[in-house]
């Protein structure tokens, strides 16, 4: 059976989604979704272990050898992505129960978990596949289910946020499709490894150059690369809490992974990436995101929106690491994928707890929260430290390696940008802390108690993890460096 783990990794969630639809009962659907995400996590960990010991795993679907059939190709990079996605997915499930019950009408809850499983399957499918068109199909499964889940937010702005995301996401996917079509036209294949061996021969054709451009823009829309990020703030701010946690921690990360995969595996043997102007353009966009989005975050009055802008800045860090085209830079990006997932997941969970109890995440509602919800706010502060990059946190680890990579390349300006952006993070986190701890609760406000344990425990698991892996980062760093080296080792 172990040989079939790659297929089961995605198929289990796919099978469970229609089961939820048949069950039609919120609790049963929740139980199915929880069990499936936990099994998926176990599968992902075992796959990572196997890749670590024996190297790349290949799994041809239907036993049709690639490039004629679709093949799963799992190396350290995607195995690590699978772990990130399933880890967040499993931690979100216990949290989701109370949170979803509070935010979504009861009759719709079973459909919500159906969507959640489809989204999980879609993201896993993107991360695991070795076929560029199969990636498109699973990208669409995950995107469509995200649009639906975002639209379920209680604020009516959730609807327009979902609609705008749908339009921009579809444009992105169509651009990606144009890029794939042009690559296919010049090579005759859709398999990533096969593309990587054929592309160098036709790389100097104008068609392939344009294909790369369209792939970049298409995926750039999906990962909210500045200035293609416009859909993100409202989508994160108005989606139901559990959805925000899951999407913020995994959605854009998987898009970043796809970006890395296209650039370093599919175009791995091609000079245009190392010699052309693309790295410079990416670096400039990344820097703009890091400074610009952080600046906007400072002026937000909705704390969920504030965190959303901070996410755009953090995506800037990841793209900066990619743009350096060195092992250290890429390892910094990969480790940051994991680190940012756990800390941002934790921060948005804290928002979920506050929304659950107070019903709003407007900054002025935070007055006196430090005393009224001490456990939640302590988690927020701890997560905030990580976002800033205080030593002993995961945020520090990522920034340390990104700075090191920048120094190796002599990019002093990049170092400065990282520092300035961290200082700005201090400001926006401080604004929240100041209101929560140093202002008395508004007079006559109702007594507020802590959120239920089912929400606090997942919250502290993620926050705890962001310290555990900050103090002892050897494991994540080993994986990230091995992954980065394998990406530079040419095709699979």
């Amino acid at each position, binding site marked *: 059976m172990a040989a*079939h783990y790659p297929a089961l990794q995605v198929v289990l969630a796919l099978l469970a989604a229609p089961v939820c639809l*048949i069950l039609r009962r919120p609790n049963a659907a929740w139980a199915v979704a929880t069990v499936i995400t936990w099994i998926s996590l176990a599968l992902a960990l075992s796959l990572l272990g196997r890749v670590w010991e024996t190297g790349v795993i290949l799994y041809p679907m*239907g036993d049709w050898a690639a490039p004629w059939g679709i093949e799963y190709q799992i190396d350290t990079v995607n195995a690590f992505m699978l772990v990130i996605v399933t880890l967040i997915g499993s931690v979100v499930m216990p949290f989701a129960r109370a949170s979803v019950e509070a935010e979504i009408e009861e009759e719709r809850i079973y459909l919500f978990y159906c969507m959640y499983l489809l989204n999980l399957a879609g993201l896993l499918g993107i991360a695991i596949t070795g076929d560029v068109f199969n990636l498109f199909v699973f990208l669409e499964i995950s995107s469509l289910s995200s649009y639906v889940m975002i639209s379920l937010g209680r604020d009516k702005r959730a609807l327009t946020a979902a609609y705008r995301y749908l339009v921009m996401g579809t444009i992105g996917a169509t651009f990606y499709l144009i890029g794939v079509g042009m690559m296919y036209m010049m090579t*005759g294949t859709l398999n990533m490894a096969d593309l990587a061996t054929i592309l160098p021969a036709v790389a100097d054709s104008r068609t392939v150059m344009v294909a790369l*451009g369209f792939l970049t823009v298409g995926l750039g829309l999906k990962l909210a690369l500045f200035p293609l990020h416009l859909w993100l703030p409202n989508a994160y701010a108005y989606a139901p809490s559990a959805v925000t946690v899951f999407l913020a921690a995994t959605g854009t990360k998987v898009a970043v992974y796809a970006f890395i995969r296209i650039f370093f595996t599919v175009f791995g043997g091609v000079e245009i990436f190392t010699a052309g102007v693309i790295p410079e353009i990416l670096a400039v966009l990344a820097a703009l995101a890091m400074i610009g989005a952080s600046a906007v975050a400072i002026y937000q009055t909705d704390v969920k929106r504030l965190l959303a802008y901070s996410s755009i800045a953090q995506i800037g860090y990841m793209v900066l690491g990619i743009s350096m085209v060195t092992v250290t830079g890429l390892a910094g990006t990969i480790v940051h994928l994991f680190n940012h997932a756990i800390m941002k997941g934790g921060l948005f969970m804290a928002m979920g707890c506050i929304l659950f109890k107070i019903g709003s995440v407007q900054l002025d509602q935070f007055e006196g929260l430090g005393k009224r919800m001490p456990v939640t706010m302590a988690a927020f502060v701890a997560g905030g430290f990580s976002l800033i990059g205080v030593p002993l946190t995961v945020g520090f680890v990522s920034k340390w390696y990104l700075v090191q990579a920048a120094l190796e390349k002599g990019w002093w300006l990049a170092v400065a940008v990282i520092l300035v952006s961290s200082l700005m993070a201090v400001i926006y986190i401080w604004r929240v802390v100041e209101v929560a701890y140093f202002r008395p609760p508004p007079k006559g406000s109702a007594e507020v108690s802590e959120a239920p344990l089912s929400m606090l425990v997942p919250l502290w698991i993620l926050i705890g993890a962001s310290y555990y892996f900050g103090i002892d980062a050897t494991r994540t760093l080993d994986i990230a460096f091995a992954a980065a080296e394998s990406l530079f080792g040419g095709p699979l």
Partner: protein
Amino acid sequence: MVFMAVTGFAIARLRNLFGVVMLTGIFSLMSAVLYVVLDAVDVAFTEAAVGAGIATVLMLSTLALTSSEERVSEDGKPMWALGLVVVTGAVLIYGTLDMPPFGDAYAPIHHHVAPRYLERSGQEVGIPNVVTSILASYRGYDTLGEVYVIFTAACGVLLIIGQPKRGRRRTLRMLVGEMRHGMRQNVILRVVSKLLIPFILVFALYVQWHGDFGPGGGFQAGVIFASGFILYALIFDVDTSRMVVPSGVTRLLLALGVLLYAGVGVVGLLRGGNFLNYSVLAEEQTVGQHLGILLVEFGVGLTVAAAMITIFFTFARQEH
């Protein structure tokens, strides 16, 4: 193709949204004709059924629920958009310069992966329609994903605009009123459609099982089958047809279709092959492949028909 371009421009200019939707349908039909000219009969079939049929019906029901006139915008905002479009278009044209010319048999796409399908699918899968072989077997996993996309859309529409539970009693009351109203409707229309609908459904079944030999297959069949019901609903009324196919049943079929597809994959896995390997389903490879393709195509047909019916009825039952 020039006609398509003209239609495209007309759509961009026209303010009346009903006109726009109709032109979109025409646009889609023209593209279907073009697909036939370009040898893609299966695609043409699907585009005609989906683009010109289902999508148009959905857009019309949306317009009925919203408004049919586009407000004229007074500011000159589209200038940046025009700029962006011109730049993107220029980049694309630049990209076409190194493309192999149209219809060139020596172009790389006809030489690396594709020839094997044409040369060996006859022995390996054993059915004449190569498109079906690739769709259901070689790249069967993509098709599984595709069915899940439509499944996601149906569940999504239910989640976004579905009205949970409370409707039953009101539906019955409305039904009585609607029936009386329906009597006054065009008799010829009703008789013709009553005659026509059984044929549509039979034709759908034919398309379903004939997909191995000629153009067709589960997806097209599902759409045609659903359109039979949609026609019934349009001419008679929504609630009567809803009685014929209760929402619980469509929901069950929706789930069963995808489960059947994925289930066939799992059976292949249990019998010693990889996921979605149909060859192990029977003693002989081609028999197994044939069986597998029939089953998954049936799964596709079920889910697509149920999804289309679900989506249509959810739209149709909105109140304004």
